[in-house]
């Protein structure tokens, strides 16, 4: 007879067998699901990491234009050009000379050929195009020569060109594509009318393209057209442009390829902030191209410009500062602001203005003019040393519009100031009214003198004062009108132009500064 115990044994055995099979299946499933989860997590993390790696913007190289010396515009030549303008009276002449002498521009800034050759009143399309070709070709040739066989022109994926005041058809970008035989599928954008801050707008555009694509090479070309934009009238607000704008240009190669960027990149873009104050009518019209009452084209700079610039700057700084300053400085500033509000004492022990030098080592300020540099320097609490690169650029190259910040960067590099880890702030202003800023981090010690090669040793000079300061003191002479008339007659009759400006000044005015 089979006992109950004997009957239970096979049942237990089978139950145990099922249980062990089930538990091993469980273990297998648990292992499998863990593996799948880890795999999925790794894929997600790798995706995020890949995106982050390729979202960087590296500056591989940049080249600023150094025009040929036959295009220099010293003060006496400027005076001669002004004197050619028949509709200028003594008051305008005085005004212009004062502006030129007090502008902070030196004797070696550059202008377009048609103006130097006496054709400023009737520029042709060929003049404008040749000015652009003279700006682009040398810098692009040099940038590609330095890039070497690794980055031939056919490797360029994105081309952004910005020239504010000249836009022919086909575009200047198409002209570059034609000359350098760039690829058919290139992503090309030709920006125009965007003012002196267009350089950073181009960088912003390239940065956005980099985030949308991987392993791209971008070429940015910036310059300004002066040849067709010389003002031949007598409205003071429109003559200022003639005194300040000078020829210049820059080409820069950028990439978002992390390997290439780390190997060959000079700087990496950390932050970029754009501010547009177009909603304010005064700001919008304070710097604009227009015609005067006689229909002559020129660039009008109004009295509201400093206010607009200050407001745009403030709004830009408000967004930029928290992103680039160290936490300690942000806390200190907040504390100081609260203390200032609560404390009734007139003297506050803490400075309630933000100290940008805690987050920035070098400042590339747009060389819009002496007033712009000084105004920004005061707002940011910068000393002479911090403003030196911008002042020297204004002196050596003038206001080259959108490419000015690259010349300032070139000065710092030529002076061997840019070391690995340093942070460089570029700050630009432009018509519209815009204020754009960006922060670069230097990746390697930068020592290329570039456009400053031939003159960096002479900077900073002992004085930035215009050498014609004394010479033009006679402009306050009551009999100056007769003098001006005789000077103009001698120029129009084409007899020795330069010697007319070497008339000995009346003794009473020899030491009088030009107001």
């Amino acid at each position, binding site marked *: 007879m089979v006992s109950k115990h004997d009957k239970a044994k096979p049942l237990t055995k089978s139950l145990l067998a099922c249980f062990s099979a089930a538990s091993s299946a*469980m273990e297998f*499933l*648990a292992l*499998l*699901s863990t593996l*799948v*989860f880890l*795999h*999925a*997590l790794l*894929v*997600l993390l*790798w*995706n*995020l990491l*890949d995106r982050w790696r390729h979202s960087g913007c590296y500056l591989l190289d940049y080249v600023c234009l150094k025009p040929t010396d036959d295009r220099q515009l010293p003060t006496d030549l400027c005076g001669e050009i002004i004197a050619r303008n028949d509709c200028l009276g003594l008051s305008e002449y005085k005004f212009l000379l004062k502006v030129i002498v007090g502008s902070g521009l030196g004797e070696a800034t550059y202008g377009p050929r048609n103006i130097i050759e006496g054709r400023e009143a009737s520029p042709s399309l*060929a003049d404008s195009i040749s000015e652009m070709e003279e700006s682009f070709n040398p810098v692009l040739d040099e940038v590609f020569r330095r890039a070497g066989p690794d980055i031939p022109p056919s490797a360029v994926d994105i081309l952004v060109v910005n020239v*504010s005041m000249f*836009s*022919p*058809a*086909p*575009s*200047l970008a*198409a002209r570059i*594509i*034609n000359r350098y035989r*760039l*690829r*058919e*599928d290139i*992503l090309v*954008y*030709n*920006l*125009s*009318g*965007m*003012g002196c801050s267009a350089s950073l*707008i181009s960088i912003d*555009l390239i940065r956005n*393209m980099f985030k*949308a*694509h*991987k*392993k*791209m090479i971008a070429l940015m070309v910036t310059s300004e057209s002066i040849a067709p934009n010389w003002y031949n009238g007598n409205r003071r607000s429109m003559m200022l442009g003639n005194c300040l704008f000078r020829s210049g240009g820059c080409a820069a190669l950028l990439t978002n390829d992390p390997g290439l960027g780390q190997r060959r990149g000079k700087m990496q873009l950390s932050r970029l902030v*754009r*501010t*547009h*104050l*177009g*909603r*304010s009518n005064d700001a*919008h019209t304070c710097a604009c191209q227009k015609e005067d009452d006689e229909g002559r084209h020129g660039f009008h700079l109004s009295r509201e410009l400093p206010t607009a610039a200050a407001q745009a700057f403030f709004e830009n700084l408000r*967004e930029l500062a928290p992103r680039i300053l160290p936490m300690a400085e942000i806390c200190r500033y907040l504390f100081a602001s609260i203390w200032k509000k609560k404390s009734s004492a007139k003297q506050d022990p803490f400075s309630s203005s933000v100290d940008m030098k805690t987050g920035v080592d070098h400042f590339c300020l747009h060389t819009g003019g002496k007033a712009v540099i000084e105004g920004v320097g005061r707002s940011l609490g910068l000393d002479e040393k911090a403003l030196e690169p911008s002042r020297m650029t204004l002196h050596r190259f003038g206001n080259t519009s959108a490419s000015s910040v690259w010349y300032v960067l070139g000065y710092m590099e030529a002076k061997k100031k840019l070391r690995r880890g340093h942070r460089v702030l570029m700050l630009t202003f432009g*018509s*519209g*009214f*815009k204020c754009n800023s960006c922060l670069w981090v230097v990746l390697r010690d930068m020592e290329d003198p570039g456009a400053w090669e031939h003159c960096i040793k002479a900077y900073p000079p002992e004085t930035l004062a215009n050498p014609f300061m004394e010479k033009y003191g006679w402009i306050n002479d009551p009999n100056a009108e007769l003098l001006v008339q005789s000077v103009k007659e001698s120029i129009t009759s084409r007899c020795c132009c330069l010697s007319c400006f070497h008339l000995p000044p009346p003794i009473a005015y020899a030491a009088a500064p030009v107001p």
Partner: protein
Amino acid sequence: MRGVSDAGRLARNILIPAAIAAAAYLLLSSVLINQTLLLLLSTSAAACCGAAFLLSRPRPVYLVDYACLRPLQTCRVPFATYMEHARMCEFFDEKSVEFQMRILERSGLGEETCLPPANHYLPPQKTMEGGRWEAEMVVFSVVDEVLARTKMEAKNVDAVVVNCSLFAPTPSMVDMVVNRYKMRSNVRAYNLSGMGCSAGIIAVDLARQLLQVHSNWYVLVISTEILTPNYYAGRSRSMLLPNCLFRMGAAASLLSNRSSTVVPPKYRLLHVVRTHCGAHDPSFLCVTQAEDPAGQIGISLSKDLMSVAGDALRSNITTIGPLVLPASEQLRFLFALLARRAISSSWPPYLPDFRKAFDHFCIHAGGRAVIDELQRSLRLKPGDVEASRMTLHRFGNTSSSSLWYELSYIEAKGRMKKGDRVWMIGFGSGFKCNSAVWRCVRDVGFPGDGPWAECVHRYPVHVPEIVSFA
């Protein structure tokens, strides 16, 4: 190398789906076996895979709505007005007038095309102030309309892109828009210039790039051509063509990558393909701004224009074909290509039938010859190019905005249905050929207003080869 990297494509197409399938299997088994740990792990795995998949996908770009300018009747330039004006301009001689008359007779333009008021003056006023005035009139009209249609407030616009080829004042037209509509201080504004009649698609491409990077954005794209400062007042024949063909027009469109907008979007942007033939000298030189012997600036069109356009189109098709053509057409094309290479070079090349890929075609209304050439090259039927021909007839060559007028025509005729695919092709100086492919995502009835509201019932019209008005 552009686009998603090879590794990214591998992840998206193989690894992620495999992981999702495995996670789904585990999810099912864990539900059946009722194991909490398994459930947790498998749902987490599925979530990670889903996130990775969504991240690697490009963001969808939608066209919420668009608006085209309907110029004032007072700007109308019937042939008689144009010829009378030409005869009274002292800078035209008899031969130039005769030449313009012959161009107009064969142009395919109708009697209702418009020129800006400054061009009606004797002599035409070519001032910058006049250009700004025209820009304000055309741009503000279309932007007002598009904001009204999309029920958008200007302060919610995140980026603005304006393209205008031949007029770029400082501050630019985009700054003018920001000023007029009091947009935010962090609006991204871009002003494209000098990029020709295909710049509208370039502007859309720029908007698309921005929408890939930023989420929940609205981008306003404005395409126009300002004619006031560009009237050619000379006698060179190659430069008189633009006077005869270019007419006033503008279009504004609102693009977004939001999943839900106040007004449901009309179209989804599927592809943009850009081809730039500037490296090839004849292409670069076929449309150039130049000075004539008298010093007058005008746009010169070379005789090679059609062949250059054909080459640019072929190049563009080579890229866009594989993206849009059905497999059957691609196989036939491949077979013909291999046969030409392997068997005989006289084997006829196979031109794919793009009518199998697209329901509607918007071909830049550059001129009658351009539309004829494309109809022949792409083997299209007259009905396929009707929108282009009728736009040329009613509005003339409005440069970069012409594609939008053509799209509006198709909608006004009630032919646009949900799911239809539209191919926009633009040509421009440089020489460029740019294509955009849209898919209609909702039924689009006749909007009731728009540039064709008052005249679509008269269309299509037969446009004779020559309209004689000697």
